[in-house]
């Protein structure tokens, strides 16, 4: 019985490893293909919306509220989190999922989700404190 169980676990391990390689190669191929599609376009033929930033636009940036900067710093702090934690926070706060649902989706315990949430929020707080946004 145990021997059979071991064989099945080996199968899952083998497949996961195989899939990991397949996905990695697909990603590389996609990035290569999309990179080739990018063309160098002369600045004169750029549509108005894609023109470089000039003085008027800079004035608009200067008038950004504090909130915009806090939001930007929060986004930066969020991007620094490990991908798994980003996913958990997104599912919790954007998609409004319960920790139990997330745990089921990620094949882990609800406690693990709570721990990851706690660690992620703690890290975000530390990052924002560096910028003086929260005390």
């Amino acid at each position, binding site marked *: 019985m145990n021997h059979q169980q071991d064989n099945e676990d080996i199968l899952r391990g*083998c497949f996961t490893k195989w899939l990991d390689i397949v996905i990695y190669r697909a990603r590389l191929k996609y990035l290569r293909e999309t990179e080739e599609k990018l063309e160098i376009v002369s600045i004169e033929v750029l549509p108005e919306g894609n023109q470089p930033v000039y003085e008027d636009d800079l004035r608009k940036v200067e008038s950004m509220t504090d909130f915009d900067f806090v939001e930007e710093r929060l986004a930066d702090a969020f991007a620094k989190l490990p991908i798994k934690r980003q996913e958990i926070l997104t599912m919790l706060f954007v998609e409004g999922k319960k920790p139990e649902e997330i745990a089921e989706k990620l*094949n882990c315990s609800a406690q693990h989700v709570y721990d990851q949430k706690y660690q992620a929020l703690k890290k975000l707080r530390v990052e924002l404190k560096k910028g003086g946004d929260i005390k």
Partner: protein
Amino acid sequence: MKPEEFRRILEDAIMGSHEALEKIFELYEPLINKYSRIGGKLDEDLRQYILIHIALNISKFTIPIR
């Protein structure tokens, strides 16, 4: 999911079952999403490309003999 169930789903997916393939996608969603990010954001085009790539290649996976 029990290991026997996983084997059955994988075998079905290799044989071309769409339903089994969907289950494999669901099961490996975190891994797929992990590789579908560009600059920290989920890129839906890349995600679709990866899913198609898996669907086209899964038949090449050889199940080890028990």
